[in-house]
C-alpha cells in the first residue's frame, strides 16, 4: 500500500482540482482501476436458504464484505480460494435468495450488476432425488450430489382441456466449461476401486461436518428407501454408499415444494429428470440474459414424496458446497 494519507489533507485539502481535463483524467484512472480489481472476481455462488448458505460458508471459508451502494440492503461478499496450482482466485457470494425462481433470478442479476466481470455462477443447494429402486447406477440416493447439465421448469405449462403441455423445456443448459470441469472430476468416480479412493471434495465435507450442527452423514437407517431397494440392473457399476456419489442429468425446477411421488415419477418418465428443486430456472434465465454461464449443484436430501423429512438437509447442503468448491478449483486450474 502507498503511504497512508494525512487525515487533515483529506478533510480540508489545500487546493481542490477544478481543471476539467485533470478531473477527467482522475475519472479515467478510477475506471481503469475498477476494471483491474473487479476483473479478478470471475465466479459467483448463490444459495437459496440459510442452512445452505451456512454450509457453503463452512466449506468455502471466511468471506470478506465488499463495499456496497448505500441504497441497497443487499451485501455482496467475496471468498478467496486457491486452485490446484496454488493460484489465488476470487468468488462473489450473494448470500441467500429465498426459495423460488423469481428470487433466484433477482439474485443472479444483482451479482452481475455489482460484479460485472463475473462470468460463471454456481447455484448450490439441496434437492429431492429421483429414486430408482431397480437400477443401482441410476438410483439417486440421499446424500448424493446431482449436477444439472439440463434444466426444465416443470411449472411452466400450458393446460388445455385437461391436457398439460410443458413449456419450460427450453431453458439454457449448464455451462460447457463448468460441465467440462465436472467431467474431469467425474472421471475419479470411473476408476477401478473408485469408491475407496479419496476425492477432492472429501476434505471439504469433513470441514463442513465439523463446523455445522447436524451436518454429519445420517445413518443409512434414516433413508426410507434402504429396505426397499432391489437392484436388478447396474449391478456391475461401482459406486460408494457411505459418501456422496455424483450424478449428472436433467434437473426439474419449479416454485413448488414437491411431496408427490406419482407426479415426480411422471416427470422422470416424460423428461428424464433425476432431481427436483425450486430456484434453478431463475438462475438459468437470469444468467442467460446477463451473459453468465451457470451450473446447478444439488445435494439430495429427500425423495420429493410424503416421506420427506429434514434429516438429510444439512449434510446434503455440505456435500453440494464441497463438490461446488471442487468444481471451481478444477475449472480455475485449466
Amino acid at each position, binding site marked *: *500500500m502507498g503511504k*497512508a*494519507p494525512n*487525515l487533515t489533507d*483529506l478533510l480540508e485539502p489545500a487546493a481542490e482540482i477544478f481543471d476539467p481535463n485533470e478531473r477527467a483524467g482522475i475519472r479515467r484512472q478510477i475506471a481503469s482501476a475498477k476494471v483491474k480489481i473487479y476483473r*479478478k472476481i470471475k465466479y459467483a455462488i448463490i444459495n437459496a436458504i440459510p442452512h445452505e448458505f451456512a454450509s457453503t460458508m463452512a466449506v468455502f471459508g471466511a468471506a470478506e464484505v465488499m*463495499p456496497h451502494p448505500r441504497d441497497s440492503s443487499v451485501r455482496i461478499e467475496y471468498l478467496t480460494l486457491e486452485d490446484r496450482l496454488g493460484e489465488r482466485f476470487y468468488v462473489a457470494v450473494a448470500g441467500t435468495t429465498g426459495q423460488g425462481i423469481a428470487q433466484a433470478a433477482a439474485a443472479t442479476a444483482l451479482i452481475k450488476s455489482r460484479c460485472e466481470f463475473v462470468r460463471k455462477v454456481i447455484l448450490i443447494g439441496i434437492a429431492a432425488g429421483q429414486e430408482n429402486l431397480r437400477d443401482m447406477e441410476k438410483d439417486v440416493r440421499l446424500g448424493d450430489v446431482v449436477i444439472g447439465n439440463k434444466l426444465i421448469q416443470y411449472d411452466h405449462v400450458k393446460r388445455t382441456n385437461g391436457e398439460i403441455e410443458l413449456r419450460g423445456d427450453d431453458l439454457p443448459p449448464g455451462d460447457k466449461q463448468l460441465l467440462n470441469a465436472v467431467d474431469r472430476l467425474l472421471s475419479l468416480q470411473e476408476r477401478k476401486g473408485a469408491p475407496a479412493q479419496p476425492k477432492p471434495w472429501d476434505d471439504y465435507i469433513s470441514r463442513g461436518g465439523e463446523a455445522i450442527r447436524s451436518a454429519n452423514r445420517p445413518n443409512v437407517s434414516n433413508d426410507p428407501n434402504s429396505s426397499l431397494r432391489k437392484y436388478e440392473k447396474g449391478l456391475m457399476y461401482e459406486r460408494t454408499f457411505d459418501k456422496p456419489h455424483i450424478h449428472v442429468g436433467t434437473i426439474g425446477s419449479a416454485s413448488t415444494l414437491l411431496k408427490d411421488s406419482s407426479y415426480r415419477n411422471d416427470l422422470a418418465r416424460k423428461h428424464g429428470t433425476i432431481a427436483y428443486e425450486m430456484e434453478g430456472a431463475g438462475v438459468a434465465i437470469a444468467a442467460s440474459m446477463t451473459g453468465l454461464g451457470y451450473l446447478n449443484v444439488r445435494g439430495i436430501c429427500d425423495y420429493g414424496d410424503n416421506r420427506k423429512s429434514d434429516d438429510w438437509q444439512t449434510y446434503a447442503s455440505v456435500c453440494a458446497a464441497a463438490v461446488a468448491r471442487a468444481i471451481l478449483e478444477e475449472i480455475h486450474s485449466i
Partner: protein
Amino acid sequence: MSADQDLTPATEREFGALLQMYQVAGALDAIAPSASLLSKNLKFYTEFAFYLGEKAGYRVAIEFCDLLVKKLSDADRKRNIGVLLIVEAQFFDELGIGMSRDLFALEAAEAFVRSGQYRAAQTALKLVAA
C-alpha cells in the same frame, strides 16, 4: 494517517471513555447520536476509529467505520464518506487483505468524485495497489 501520532492524555482519556461506552452499549448511537454531530466531528470519530483499531482490533474498527458510513448515508450526508472508506482500506491493509484494501480504496475514490472532491479522490487512488 493519525495512527502514528501520540495521543495527548486528555484525548487518551476521552477515547478510553468512548470505547467503554461503545463496548457497553454495542451500538453507534451511544457515542454518535446524530448524523449532524458525526458529520461536524468526522475527524474526531475517524481518529477514534484508529484508537479502536489498536485497542479492540482492526475488525472491530472496520465495523465501526461501516456503521459511521451507514449513518451518514442514511442521513444523506455523503460528503467525506470517502475518508471513512479510506480508513477501512488502511485497516484491511494492516490485516494483510489486499483485495479488500483495493476495493475500499477504489470505493473511496468513487465516493469523493461523486461529491466533487477530486483532490481526495486522487489521494484514494494512490492507495490502490492492484
